[in-house]
C-alpha cells in the first residue's frame, strides 16, 4: 500500500510549468526527502500534496483515497513550515489546539492530545507562553507539535530547519529522525541541504526543473548517481568530472587511457564520448593506493585545510581535480603526490544524455 501517490501531476503558473508530468509513490511509514536547489519545484510539490495549491492536471492519493479536490484539513496531513508560522497572539497551547478546535473535538480529548504531544516534544513548560517568548528551536518544536496533535497519516516538512543556526539544526535533525522512528508516520521533507537529506531519508527524490531526476536510497544516490546532475549535486566537495571517450581499452582522456576494470556498466561495452566522475574522497593516497588500477603523480596547486580533512586542488589528465586527504597529512603547494583511483567507485555518464553508463 502506498501512503502518498502522485500521478502525472502538472502545475503551471500561467505559462511557467513548475511541475511536469510528475509521478511519485511514497511507501507507508517512509521518510522521503525532496531535495533540489531553489526553484526546482520541491516546495511547490509539497504545497500540492498539502492542498494549498490547486494542481493543473493529475491526481494525488493519500492512503489510497483521491484527495485531489479536498481541502488541506481533510487530507490527513500535518505541515511544518520554515518560518514556523505559529499564531503570534495565541499561547503554545492555543497553537497546538487550534486545529483540533476547528475540527470540533471535545475539550478533554484536546487536552489529552496536547499533553501527549507536549510530552513527546518536551515543550510542557512552554505551554502557557506566547511564541514571541520562545527561541527558534522551541518554536520549531511547537510547529512540529501542531502537526503531531492532529494525529495525521502524513507529515509534511517545508525546510523546517533552514531558519536555525548550524548547531540547533544538527540537534533538531536528530530529533526529527527519532520522532520518525517513534511514530513511524510517513514523512515528506523538503530541503536544499544535502546533509539533511542524506541523514534523514529512507529515500531521496532529487528534483530539477519540476521533474524527479532520481529517486533512490541515500547510499544508492551517493554511490551510483543516475545522471550527471545528481552526481554533481550530491557530495561536498562535489565530484570531479573528466571529459573523454569510452572505448574497448578503457577511458581515453588527455592522451592517456584509464582502465575501467571493476566498473559495473549498465549496458554491455558502451563506447563514445563520456564523462568520468570521481568523488574527491574516493581518491587514495599513501598506503591505500597500492593495487588500484589508476595511478598518477600530481602536483599540488592549492590546499584547503578543514581540520578533519584537507582538500587538495591539482591538475589531473589536463583538467582541474580535487581530492581529499586526511586532516593530519602534511601537504603544501608545489608538493608532488602519488594518487590512486578505483574505477569501481567511479561513475561514467554519457556525454550527450548525461545518463549513467
Amino acid at each position, binding site marked *: 500500500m502506498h501512503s502518498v501517490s502522485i500521478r502525472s501531476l502538472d502545475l503551471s503558473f500561467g505559462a511557467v510549468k513548475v511541475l511536469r508530468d510528475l509521478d511519485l509513490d511514497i511507501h507507508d511509514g517512509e521518510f522521503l526527502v525532496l531535495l533540489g536547489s531553489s526553484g526546482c519545484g520541491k516546495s511547490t510539490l509539497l504545497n500540492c500534496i498539502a492542498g494549498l495549491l490547486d494542481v493543473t492536471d493529475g491526481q494525488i492519493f493519500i492512503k489510497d483515497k483521491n484527495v485531489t479536490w479536498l481541502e488541506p*484539513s481533510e487530507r490527513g496531513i500535518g505541515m511544518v513550515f520554515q518560518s514556523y*508560522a505559529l*499564531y503570534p497572539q495565541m499561547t503554545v497551547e492555543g497553537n497546538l489546539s*487550534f486545529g483540533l478546535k476547528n475540527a470540533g473535538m471535545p475539550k478533554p480529548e484536546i487536552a489529552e492530545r496536547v499533553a501527549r504531544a507536549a510530552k513527546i516534544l518536551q515543550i510542557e513548560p512552554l505551554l502557557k507562553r506566547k511564541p514571541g517568548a520562545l527561541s527558534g528551536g522551541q518554536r520549531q518544536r511547537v510547529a512540529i507539535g501542531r502537526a503531531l496533535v492532529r494525529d495525521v497519516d502524513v507529515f509534511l516538512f517545508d525546510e523546517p530547519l533552514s531558519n536555525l543556526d548550524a548547531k540547533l539544526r544538527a540537534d533538531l535533525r536528530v530529533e526529527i529522525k527519532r520522532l520518525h522512528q517513534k511514530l513511524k508516520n510517513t514523512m515528506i521533507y523538503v530541503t536544499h541541504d544535502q546533509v539533511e537529506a542524506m541523514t534523514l531519508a529512507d529515500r531521496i527524490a532529487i528534483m530539477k526543473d519540476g521533474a524527479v531526476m532520481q529517486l533512490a536510497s541515500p547510499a544508492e544516490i551517493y554511490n551510483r548517481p543516475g545522471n550527471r546532475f545528481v552526481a554533481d549535486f550530491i557530495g561536498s566537495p562535489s565530484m570531479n568530472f573528466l571529459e573523454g571517450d569510452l572505448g574497448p581499452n578503457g577511458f581515453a582522456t588527455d592522451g592517456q587511457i584509464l582502465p575501467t576494470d571493476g566498473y559495473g556498466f549498465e549496458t554491455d561495452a558502451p563506447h563514445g564520448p563520456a564523462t568520468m566522475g570521481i568523488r574527491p574522497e574516493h581518491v587514495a593516497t599513501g598506503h591505500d593506493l597500492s593495487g588500484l588500477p589508476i595511478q598518477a603523480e600530481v602536483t599540488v596547486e592549492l590546499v584547503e585545510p578543514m581540520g578533519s580533512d584537507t582538500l587538495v586542488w591539482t591538475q589531473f589528465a589536463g583538467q582541474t581535480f580535487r581530492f581529499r586527504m586526511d586532516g593530519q597529512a602534511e601537504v603544501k603547494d608545489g608538493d608532488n603526490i602519488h594518487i590512486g583511483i578505483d574505477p569501481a567507485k567511479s561513475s561514467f555518464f554519457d556525454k550527450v544524455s548525461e545518463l549513467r553508463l
Partner: protein
Amino acid sequence: MADASMTVPATGLADGPRGPKPRRAFSRGNIFLYGTLGLVAIYYMIPLWVMVMTSLKGMPEIRMGNIFAPPLEITFEPWVKAWSEACTGVNCDGLSRGFWNSVQILIPSVVLSIAVASVNGYALSNWKFKGSEVFFTILILGAFIPYQVMIYPIVIILREIGIMSSLAGLVLVHTIFGMPILTLLFRNYFASVPEELFKAARVDGAGFWGIYFRIMLPMALPIFVVAMILQVTGIWNDFLFGVIYTKPEIYPMTVQLNNIVNSVQGVKEYNVNMAATLLTGLVPLTIYFVSGKLFVRGIAAGAVKG
C-alpha cells in the same frame, strides 16, 4: 618564527581619541535646528492661541482689538452659548443638536466602512480569485475620481432606493467613499502577514471567516486604529456630503457650524464663533491625542517586521 609583537598582546592605551565622541549641546547646528523648529511651532500655534483667547473674552474686550492678548476677564459664556443657544435659522439650540447628529452619522459609518474594507482587504490579499487583481485596480481607481463628479448620480440613486435626506443614506455614502483607500490600507497590511501563517491555518482546518476572526483580526489591531482615525476625522470633518445628502434637522455639526458662523443677521459674535469652531474640532483632536502612538505604529507596521 612569528613576530613577537603579534603574539604578545598590547597593554595600556595609546594617546588620542578614546570612548564616545564628545558632542556639544550648543553647537551651531543645534541652535539652528531647534531655532527653526521653535519658530515653526510658534507659527502653527498662533491661530490656535488666537482662537482660544478670543473664545474666552467678552464682546466688549474683543472690540478693543488686541487679538493676541490673553483675556483680562475670563468668561465661559461664549462656550455655553455656542453649545446650547446659538441660532441657525429658526432653531436656537446651539451646536449640541449638530453634535449628536454627527455622532449618529459617525459611529455606523466608521464601523460599517472598516468592517467592509477589512474583509475586502483580507480577501484580496489572501484569497486571490480569478480577476481579483482587476477588481482591486477598479476599486483603487475609485479613489482617484473626484467626488464632485459623483454627487448628482448619487442623489438619484439615493432617491430611487428611498434613503435620500436620511441618516442611512449618508452612512451608505461614507461607507462607499471610504472603501477604496481603506481596502488598500488593509490589503497591504494583510499582504505583509507571512503567507505561511495563512497556510498553517488552512491546514488546521480554519475557513475564510475562521482565519479572518481568529488569526488575522487579532494581528491587525494597529491598522484598525489607523483606519479608525482616518475615518473618524474624515467623516467628522465632512461638510459636502452632509449638506447635500441630509436635511436641516439632521445636519452634521460641521454644517451647523458653518450656518452659525456665516449667519448674516445681527452682530458677529467672534467669541461664540471661535468657541463653536473649537467645539467642532474637539472630536478629531481627542482621537489624535488618545491614539497617536498607535497611529504611528500602524503606519510603520508595513515597513518594519517585528
